[in-house]
């Protein structure tokens, strides 16, 4: 049976719409990626001549290298501390009833609504008032505050999915509360904890606004180093860096997917 022209038109306009939306999502990335190969020292699209020299500059510019390692240090510490603290708070809030429980939960989740620059500024003022140095601990502390809600949320979801009868069964079999936590609760929460950690790490590594306030020349992370660079130079180095960044992230995620099963870590697969 022949489809009517109206149906065909609808069908094709639908496809065009989807393509347009996908293009809109990808466009900024595409523009930046193409710009990275421009030979000239300006950010222009499309490029007139082609070169790889900005990639070389991205690698050789020492602030980026230092920013990368600084950022990695901050990310690993911040997301790991947030994992332990956030999971502990999440379990306590989920399991127990106590005075001001909802207030505690609200405070811990508040970084979701408080702007990052407010948190950055607040920590900076506190640090200068108390005379604390502007070293790594300050940056890490700020990042812990920022990513804590995400670890807690992820732990909450896993706790909701955890059948409490498993813990009751373990108790009936003679396991003390501590043993239940180590042998039943934590192993079963692990996918959620890992996904929370991964999410926290990605956020922390990319965080810019609050970090700008609390970092110094010695502790600046990659996004801050990139911001400082763009204030001085207008060449395509940042575009090249973006391409590297996208490629590395894609590679890491594919590896995580291949070896760990990403859908399991990200809780995409409910079973």
């Amino acid at each position, binding site marked *: 049976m022949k489809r009517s022209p109206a149906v065909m038109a609808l069908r094709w306009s639908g496809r065009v719409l989807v393509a347009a939306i996908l293009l809109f999502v990808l466009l900024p990335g595409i523009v930046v990626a193409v710009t990275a190969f421009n030979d000239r020292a300006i950010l222009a699209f499309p490029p007139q001549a082609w070169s790889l020299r900005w990639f070389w500059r991205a690698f050789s510019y020492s602030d980026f290298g230092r920013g990368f390692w600084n950022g990695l240090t901050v990310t690993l510490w911040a997301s790991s501390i947030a994992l332990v603290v956030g999971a502990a708070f999440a379990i306590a809030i989920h399991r127990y009833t106590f005075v001001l429980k909802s207030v505690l939960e609200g405070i811990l989740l508040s970084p979701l609504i408080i702007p990052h620059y407010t948190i950055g500024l607040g920590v900076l003022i506190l640090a200068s008032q108390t005379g604390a140095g502007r070293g790594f601990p300050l940056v890490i502390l700020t990042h812990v505050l920022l990513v804590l809600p995400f670890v807690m949320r992820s732990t909450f979801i896993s706790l909701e999915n955890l*059948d409490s*009868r*498993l813990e*009751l*069964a*373990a*108790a*009936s*079999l*003679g*396991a*003390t*509360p501590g*043993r239940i936590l180590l*042998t*039943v609760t934590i*192993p*079963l929460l692990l996918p959620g904890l890992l996904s929370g950690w991964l999410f926290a790490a990605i956020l922390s590594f990319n965080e810019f606004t609050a970090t700008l306030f609390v970092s110094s020349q010695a502790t600046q992370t990659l996004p801050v180093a990139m911001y400082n660079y763009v204030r001085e130079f207008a060449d395509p180095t940042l575009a090249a860096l973006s391409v590297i960044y996208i490629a590395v992230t894609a590679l890491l995620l594919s590896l995580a997917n291949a070896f760990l099963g990403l859908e399991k870590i990200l809780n995409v697969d409910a079973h």
Partner: protein
Amino acid sequence: MLMHTDRMDAIASGEAGRQGRPAVQLDGVTRRFGDSIALHEAWLKIQPGEFMTLLGPSGCGKTTLLNLVAGFLETDSGEIFIEGALVTETPAHQREIGIVFQNYALFPHMSVANNIAYGLKTRGIDRKEIARRVDEALALVKLDGFGDRKPRQLSGGQQQRVALARALVIKPKVLLLDEPFSALDKNLRGAMQVELKQIQRELGVTTIFVTHDQGEALAMSDRIAVMSAGRIRQIAAPGDVYRRPADRFVASFVGDVNVLTGCLVERRTEVATISIGDMRLEVPAPPLAQAAIGDVVDVFIRPEHLAVTSGSTPGSLRGTVTTQVFQGDHIDLYIDVAGVAREPVLLRAPGIAALSSCPVGTEVGLTVRSDDVVAFLPEASS
């Protein structure tokens, strides 16, 4: 009334000392959730090796009682004893109780063998002994060779066997079963009931079984505690619960039953006489202690205790067959009996003779061919 005697019993046994002490004993245990009373002053004694069933509709307090014995919930008042020792304040992990949940609650991240070994490891038993006892437990539930599988690789029935093995391998003082059959399909359910009962009898383990299925309760139990609205209504052997229900609730919850309107004619100490139309029946007198001669009473008659006679037999009820239901080994007849029953009376006739002898529309007489008839005051006045 029955609660009362059990309470006297409990007090008396406390004075008598520790001899023949019950495996589980509840002394006036109450538990509230907010304003609602989930369990109201439960008095219960379970003998060593006994299979005790808590039977009732959902929300009757049976699961609350189970959780209190397991130590998953705290009592608001009353005491719980296990093998004579007071455990009211003892945490769950020190009560040495085996439990099988409705969904089995197997640890999904552990192999079958590790699931079963879990309770042995917490007891610090050495590896060789654990391996030996795990194998023994697997053999007990006929799952030899399944030790390395993960729970999700097993069928529902197999998972249940693992859960049972895990609970039994620690040699629990009491085995608690929380609706363990409700997730199984009907054929498997019957087979598992027989098998569980066999294992339970073999090991002689004291068992508390929670179910809302009266058939299951009648088939498996040594005694049944029928519960509703947070109270234990009757504690008795299955036959007695069925034949001599303590109150209206028990009579209508356990088994099919017809409720006919009668009238109290005469009452002596043990037996009372009631009339339904032209029919005279003797019923136990105690439930009618509050009734006066001439009062209207509800008479509870089981479908299989009714028989068809010719319409003119003196002292019988007269009615018209409205529906025939062929059930294979018996026939269910629904009979309109004007004046004494609001709904058609259900009569269960064995065999298939009634199929041809009582077609729809036939006028028949009804007689009662059993002593197991009970009467209670109508709901509003009781």
